[in-house]
């Protein structure tokens, strides 16, 4: 009897805790959405209530005054170029490194893995200089190839680990059938690598979409701003005009929320696969 009561109390505590934690997690976003649809006066007097009259104007204003679509397109192109580059460069290298047992392959692999320990802030000064000297600063494709350089080691590590676990026989059979090395790679190996490619695409797309510091250092032309850069710039302009700021923030969140709703399962799987390896 007593054990039953204790178990019940325990259950109630757990449920209360988890619901409180959920409210804590979601309320900042919900409050931001709610207040982005109010006037500034209403935010001041009644921050928790529903808007008296929904102010779509906040969004229309922001949409007209800012380069939202342009920044969205920029960010999308940047992620697309960077992630395809990473998948291309890293799958080639990771696969071949796992299949070649020479001193050179050990050296290469060691170099790539070691660099995963270097924090970004330790390379950023040198990076600004080298991109300036090579004239790749200021453009989206330039930023993308920098992302390929920084993102490849981790992807190579994942491709390497995945390749080790697939049997060699298929490749040997294809070679006997007369494939050359490159046909073998893109006709036979790359399709087999698909599961780990999905993980790599998810991890890198999220990282680059949400990365702030590197674009901040590399992009100064407004027309090439990413979503985060223009959000940050607008935030500075609209000091304490919260109804507009919140509308900007929600617009910046929107794409990722939509992606999350539709791809939630794959994203969670990609995150845990990527971290455990």
């Amino acid at each position, binding site marked *: 009897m007593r054990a039953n009561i204790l178990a019940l109390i325990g259950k109630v505590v*757990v449920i209360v805790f988890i619901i409180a*934690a*959920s409210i804590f*997690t979601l309320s*900042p*976003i919900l*409050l931001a959405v709610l*207040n982005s649809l109010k006037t500034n006066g209403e935010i001041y007097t009644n*921050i*928790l209530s529903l808007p008296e009259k929904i102010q779509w104007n906040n969004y229309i204003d922001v949409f007209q005054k800012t380069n939202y679509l342009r920044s969205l397109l920029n960010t999308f192109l940047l992620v697309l170029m960077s992630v395809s580059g990473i998948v*291309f*460069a*890293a799958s*080639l*290298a990771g696969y071949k*490194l796992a299949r*070649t047992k*020479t001193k*050179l*392959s050990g050296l290469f692999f060691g170099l*790539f893995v070691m*660099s995963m*320990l*270097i*924090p*970004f*802030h*330790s*390379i*950023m*000064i*040198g*990076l600004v*200089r*080298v991109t300036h000297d090579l004239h790749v600063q200021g453009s989206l494709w330039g930023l993308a*190839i*920098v992302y390929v*350089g*920084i993102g*490849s*080691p981790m992807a190579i590590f994942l491709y390497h680990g995945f390749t080790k676990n697939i049997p060699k026989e298929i490749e040997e059979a294809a070679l006997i059938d007369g494939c050359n090395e490159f046909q073998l790679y893109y006709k036979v190996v790359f399709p087999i690598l698909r599961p780990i490619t999905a993980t790599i695409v998810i991890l890198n797309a*999220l990282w680059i*979409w*949400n990365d*702030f510091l590197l674009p901040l250092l590399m992009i100064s032309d407004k027309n090439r701003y990413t979503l*985060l850069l223009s*959000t*940050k710039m607008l935030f500075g302009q609209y000091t304490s005009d919260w109804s507009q*700021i*919140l509308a900007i923030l929600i617009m*910046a969140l929107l794409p*990722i929320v939509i*992606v*999350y709703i539709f791809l*939630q399962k794959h994203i*969670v799987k990609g*995150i*845990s696969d990527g*971290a*455990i390896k």
Partner: protein
Amino acid sequence: MKNSNRILLIFCLPAFLLYSTFVLYPALGGFWYSLTNWNGLDPTYGDYVGFSNYKELLGDENFKQSLLFTSKYVIYMVILQNIIALLLAVIIESFEKTKNVFRTIFFFPNMISMIVGGFIWLFIFTRVFPYLADTIGLMILDESWIGNPQYSFYSILILSLWGSVGYLMIIYIAALQNIPKQLLEAARIDGASKLQINWHIVRPLIANSITIGVFIALSTSFKVFDQVYALTGGGPGRATQVVSLNIFSEAFAMQSRFGYASAKAVVLFVLILGITLIQLLVMKRKEVEM
């Protein structure tokens, strides 16, 4: 050269070219710049000055303060992030139907850039909290959460935990799901209590994931930037200036002393490398003992 090596070189060429240009070369360059007096305006990249930047660092109170502040942040983050993530994972795994709903909710902030998340929390701290304090009298909320350094530490912490706990939670959920069900069933039949099962069976089996969780929390919180940049900008004054922000403003916002900032970056690199290596060694050894 062996044929296999030639093919290897071709396959590695694209990755290695970009990697060495944009990671290796800047990293090695950083060591060199840290020995020069190069400032951003100087087209000749400065002169060799030996270890004078490092000597100056020893007496730099601002940098020391930012190291201390970052260390405090790291300690809080490593402990809280892992405990909360593990707790959430254990609770959510014990649910049946609502498992996915809660996982989706708690992971959600992780999808958001901490720049955007930071601005949203700035609204919460500067508008919603004072409002709540006025209307329902929650006096603990009536503090200067951004302006008072004592409290802004906690606002940075709250924002960071909010944004990062979900990630570790996913890792711990995956670890819990990998535990063979028969093992838990057998212990239950033998009369072990829930706590006993968690401590004696689950804990050793997820030890490897805890090592990963601590490693991730350590290395990411040492590098914290976005959260502080968005929430306090390092202020008031330099009270919440973490190391990465200190380096950033030394190089790109203030006097453009690239040489001196590089010395700071080298220190950060050595620090992160040393601490994470020690952590991995110690925890790997513990895992074997368990």
